[in-house]
């Protein structure tokens, strides 16, 4: 396998190169703290600190290849510790911190699972987070040490130089996917180098002379960690980080930091653009100037053209240029990015016939009744390829809906110590299997996403652009018609009395026939009326009668660490009859929770 053209072959090599640049003392990362103060960490200091932490970890007995669980909510400490491990050849395993307002038991289960699955020898945390991690220690057999970040580097152990090969494991990214049990995606240095080159250079067309990233994305998640820490380190881009919680509390801070630091690159899931549109008042825009922003990426969840248009409309007085929107597609198994639209092409969409889509064909029609609009997520990067295949693994033509598959040097070698799960998702195309040889890079990642391509021959270049319809495993097939849960969920989410993103659609077997179930979070006082309204809406919009509509108390749908409802788990809970059903009764009280909190 060859090395990428424009970036260093490993992350430590990239960081050391960066620290050698003449301006390494004046360029770097800015960490905005919850109180608004900022900590500047120059690239030279970042390298120095990471090397010191690497030496400290080795002094504590960790060796190259050992796994280190990291549960550190503070962005600056997280980044320095993560890079410290990587510099020392130790494999970091980022884990999300305990979510607020939730009981802690399921969190302990997740941390225990990740610690055991990764075989982490040590967990690194903070003094404040320690109480949430300590109970896990006796349950995770490999974990022998808990260290807090202030202990790390308290003693000077100098620096060490660990030889890192591009094929070495850089870190384990446990997926927050909609499966019930997180799996550790193995990310090598070569994966990181290739993907960083792909999205930073070919995708964002970065320019180190003026580009600057601004991000509030969580760092335990691939989009925040690779997109804004690792990619920028490979390509010499300064970044301003703020805590995720600061953004959710006050979405305006995202815009303010872009304005204040003249940010040029940012990125967010669809919901965040919607949150800004909802919360930021036009009269408060004042002298906000977002004309500096030239890349506003969107990904990690289904992209709605409507959401992005509304954001652009709202921020027009602040000189936001809608061409900056950069819809994209990716997943942890491909390191991060799989496709990007060309820079400055904005949101382009395809309006297709709903009825034809139910038969797995994307037929273009004018917008209106019976049509649905999908956002163009762009094309694959150089040396990478995407294709759409049917159930037998045969490649499909443009506008035929099938599973999206991809190959190239960014694709992970598989899940850590999960050979069966790896073989399911990382394999040759079936009809090519007889001639496939592993060393040819002929392994494809089966993404589990359904979509179609359109070949674009603009400007003399041929590129296959991808449109995502939904998850293969979640597809609902009722009497031969295919429905994507995200379409059904979106329609219900837009109804009054339902909070956006708190709807799950799935199918169940009823007397041998697949049938639709909708679950939505709502107020118990409105449950009955809401049930009827949701059912009517589904009938009106999809000509489909739900088998059942279940209204559950808000906050009770199972979620991933990034806050997305888990479809399969919700379905399982429905089947097990463990969903908390909201009943039309007032004043039911939650005494057990109260008792737990006063302890």
């Amino acid at each position, binding site marked *: 396998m060859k090395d990428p053209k424009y970036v260093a072959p490993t992350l430590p090599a990239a960081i050391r190169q960066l620290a050698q640049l003449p301006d390494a003392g004046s360029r770097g990362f800015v960490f905005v703290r919850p109180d608004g103060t900022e900590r500047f960490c120059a690239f030279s200091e970042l390298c120095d600190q990471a090397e010191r932490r690497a030496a400290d970890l080795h002094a504590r007995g960790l060796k190259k290849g050992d796994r280190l669980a990291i549960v550190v909510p503070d962005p600056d400490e997280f980044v320095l510790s993560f890079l410290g491990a990587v510099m020392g050849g130790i494999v970091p395993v980022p884990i999300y911190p305990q979510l*607020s307002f939730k009981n802690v038991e399921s969190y302990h289960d997740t941390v225990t699972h990740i610690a055991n699955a990764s075989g982490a020898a040590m967990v690194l945390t903070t003094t404040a987070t320690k109480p949430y991690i300590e109970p896990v220690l006796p349950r995770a057999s490999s974990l022998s040490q808990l260290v807090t970040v202030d202990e790390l580097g308290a003693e000077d152990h100098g620096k060490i130089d660990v030889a890192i090969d591009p094929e070495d494991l850089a870190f384990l990214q446990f997926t927050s996917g909609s499966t019930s049990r997180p799996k550790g995606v193995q990310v090598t240095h070569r994966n990181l180098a290739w993907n960083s080159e792909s999205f930073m250079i070919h995708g964002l067309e970065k320019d180190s002379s003026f580009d600057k990233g601004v991000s509030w994305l969580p760092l335990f998640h691939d989009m925040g960690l690779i997109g804004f820490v690792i990619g920028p380190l490979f390509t010499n881009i300064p970044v301003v980080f703020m805590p995720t919680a600061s953004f959710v*509390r006050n979405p305006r801070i995202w815009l303010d930091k872009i304005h204040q630091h003249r940010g040029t690159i940012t990125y967010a899931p669809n919901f965040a653009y919607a949150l800004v549109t909802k919360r930021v008042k036009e009269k408060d825009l004042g002298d906000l100037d977002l004309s500096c922003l030239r890349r506003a990426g969107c990904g990690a969840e289904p992209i709605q053209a409507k959401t992005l248009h509304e954001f652009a409309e709202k921020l027009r007085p602040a000189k936001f240029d809608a061409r900056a929107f950069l819809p994209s597609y990716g997943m942890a198994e491909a390191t991060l990015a799989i496709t990007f639209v060309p820079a400055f092409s904005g949101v382009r969409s395809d309006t297709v016939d709903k009825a034809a889509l139910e038969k797995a064909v994307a037929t273009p029609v004018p917008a209106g009744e019976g049509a649905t609009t999908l956002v163009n997520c762009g094309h694959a990067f150089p040396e990478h390829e995407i294709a759409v295949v049917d159930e037998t693994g045969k490649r499909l033509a443009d506008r035929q809906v099938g599973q999206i598959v991809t190959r190239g040097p960014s694709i992970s070698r598989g899940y850590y110590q999960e050979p069966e799960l790896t073989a399911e998702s990382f394999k040759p195309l079936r009809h090519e299997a007889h001639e496939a040889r592993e060393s040819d890079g002929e392994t494809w990642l089966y993404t589990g996403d359904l979509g179609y391509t359109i070949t674009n021959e603009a400007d003399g270049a041929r590129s296959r652009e991808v449109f995502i319809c939904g998850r293969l495993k979640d597809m609902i097939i009722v009497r031969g018609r295919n429905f994507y849960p995200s379409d059904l969920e979106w329609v219900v989410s837009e109804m009054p009395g339902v909070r956006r993103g708190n709807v799950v659609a799935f199918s169940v077997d009823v007397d041998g026939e697949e049938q639709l179930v909708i679950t939505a979070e709502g107020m118990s006082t409105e449950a009955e009326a809401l049930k009827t309204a949701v059912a009517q809406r589904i009938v009106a919009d999809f000509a489909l009668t739900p088998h059942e509509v279940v209204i559950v108390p808000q906050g009770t749908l199972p979620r991933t660490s990034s806050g997305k409802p888990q479809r399969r788990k919700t379905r399982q809970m429905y089947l097990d009859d463990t969903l908390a059903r909201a009943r039309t009764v007032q004043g039911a009280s939650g005494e057990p929770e109260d008792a737990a909190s006063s302890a």
Partner: protein
Amino acid sequence: MMQAVRGFMERAELLQVFQRTATEVAEKDFPNVAETTSISELGIDSLGMLEIIGSLERELKIQIPDESLAGILTVKDLLNAVESRQPSSAA
């Protein structure tokens, strides 16, 4: 009564502020909220709660540190967190 609240805001008033803020953010009424009500019972997810807390912070000109959020499970816990952040010198 705690030193911190003196001369600033009574507990009942604080509950009303919470109720109003929650209504604004979640776009629905919360007629039966009491201190003993659990957050999950309110039907507000963690994203929504953070939005409400952000709103309270702006209105009351306080800051609730992230680390004290994890232990909040009831309205009472939340009001305690708010109260402990009220400036004792405020008129």
